[in-house]
């Protein structure tokens, strides 16, 4: 490389940094940087009325799983916390699984429409994706409520005499999360199926494979990257969900996001809230790293 070329590369890099600097400043100040302060706070002691006292302590992290007895000062496994983690994990996994079960046929349906129709079907999936999450959650609330659409239909058809009370249960959160996160599953699945070569199906049927065999042995392995992308896109926001469990769980059915809020807004235990936030962040980052690694491996094979 000649000195002139070398200096061109250097100035190009410098311009790149200079042009990106304003965006980086905003992001470091109001998005990434504050996360470091949360990490610091997770190692401090809780203040009397919320906030923190600047004394080092690992209690914030320890109290994720254990709680101190107020009389004997002994640590015991915190069943209430475990119940919240278990609920968050279980509901997120259920949501991911169910959005896949109904999202896969939907994505397949869109991908096999004639090209002219396809854009319209895709647009129909995209609108809810960009629509206010709170409004969509509220819409589900209206459907599930005692006098809502679901009960009106069920009682109208004579399936039940008394209204089914689903609202403020885990089932309601599960239905709500499936509803609001479904487009996040359908869109990457569609992208994967869209690239799928339908001739492979003919080959499969020519070799006397049944529909089930073709689905399991041909289609699913090939669209696997889309399945993984969709699963992570649904699982990650489900695990950190705050609005949906608050509106549909009615405060009783807390998930990690609501548990974090409880530590901060009710001023109970900021270091614990900070430690929980960091834990949630780590889980999400691990999930994303697994995805990035898998996606890179996948592309090198084909």
């Amino acid at each position, binding site marked *: 490389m000649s000195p002139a070329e070398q200096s061109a590369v250097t100035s190009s890099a410098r311009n790149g940094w200079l042009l990106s600097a304003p965006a980086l400043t905003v992001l470091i100040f109001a998005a990434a940087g504050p996360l470091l302060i949360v990490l610091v706070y997770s190692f401090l002691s809780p203040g009397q009325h919320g906030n923190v006292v600047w004394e080092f302590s690992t209690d914030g992290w320890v109290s994720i799983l254990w709680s101190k007895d107020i009389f004997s000062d002994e640590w015991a496994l915190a069943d209430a916390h475990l119940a919240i983690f278990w609920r968050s994990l279980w509901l997120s996994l259920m949501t991911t699984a169910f959005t896949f079960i109904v999202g896969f046929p939907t994505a397949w349906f869109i991908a096999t429409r004639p090209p002219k129709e396809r854009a319209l079907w895709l647009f129909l999936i995209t609108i809810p994706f960009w629509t206010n999450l709170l*409004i969509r959650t509220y819409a589900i609330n209206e459907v599930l409520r005692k006098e809502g659409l679901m009960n009106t239909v069920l009682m109208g058809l004579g399936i039940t005499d008394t209204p089914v009370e689903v609202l403020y249960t885990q089932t309601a959160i599960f239905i709500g999360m499936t509803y609001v996160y479904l487009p996040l599953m359908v869109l990457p699945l569609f992208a994967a199926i869209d690239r799928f070569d339908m001739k492979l199906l003919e080959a499969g049927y020519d070799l006397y494979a049944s529909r089930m065999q073709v689905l399991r042995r041909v289609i699913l392995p090939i669209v696997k990257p889309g399945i993984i992308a969709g699963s992570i896109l649904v699982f990650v926001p489900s695990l950190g969900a705050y609005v949906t469990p608050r509106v549909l769980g009615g405060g009783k059915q807390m998930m990690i996001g609501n548990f974090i809020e409880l530590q*901060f807004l009710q001023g109970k235990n900021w270091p614990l809230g900070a430690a929980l936030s960091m834990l949630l962040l780590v889980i999400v980052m691990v999930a994303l790293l697994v995805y990035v690694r898998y996606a890179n491996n996948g592309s090198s094979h084909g």
Partner: protein
Amino acid sequence: MDKSGADRGFEVARLPGFATTAIIVFVALYLPIFTLVAYSFNASTSLAVWGGFSLDWYAKAWDNQQVKDATVRSLIIASFAAVIATTVATMAALGTTRRRAFKGQTFIYVMINQPLMVPEIVTAVALMIVFGLIKVWLTSVGMGALTTGLGYLILAHSAFCIPFAYLPIRARLEGMDLTLETAAADLYATPWQTFHRVTLPLLAPGMIAGAMLAFVISLDDVVITEFVKSGGQDTLPTYMLGQMRRQLTPEINAVSTMLLGLTVVLLTAFFLLTRKKT
């Protein structure tokens, strides 16, 4: 592909039950939203009984000072956030595309996309802590006047809107023809003239699309706003969230429908704008 081939592909691609499931999914996706919209026109006070068509709830929402204030606040924050996010995202897109890969470029990408990866609740508590510390510090140095105002919300919104503004702008830049700029330079245009007269007009649709996405994203935010706002700084979504704890009336449906309408209009415009370029 010839026509007969395409037809045969279609038969082969049909899987039992898939189309039915898909149709059920589409109905299930829209039915709750349509119900919500329909009940905003309900004359009855109760959400349970249909009492005929009426625009009363819109009139009530219109007369509600809290709704008015929240709407104005939402629009101010979203406008500022969209302008700031689009400006810095355009610069960043110009800095990270159409040039030789440079050291640290991955870092810039990760930073820009970071708001998409971190759970909102985590960013929300992080900002609540940091802005709280800043406010305490400002008060201690006698600048307590700076602890109020919408600046904090605008800053927070600008940050998480950046990736949404960046993506369409970058896509537009990558699809742009370099020869026009080279031609301008050949005709002795200064780099600024080239940028101002050639690059910017070509980039405009991407910037408008990015700004609209940023606007919609800011308008919809609940979690970060809920934690960052000070007392009396409700936006439309946080006002609605607060109302959902109380007795529900179709007024919330009316407010939701208006917000929904605005979003759909912006999205349709975005859809048409980005489609036009192909």
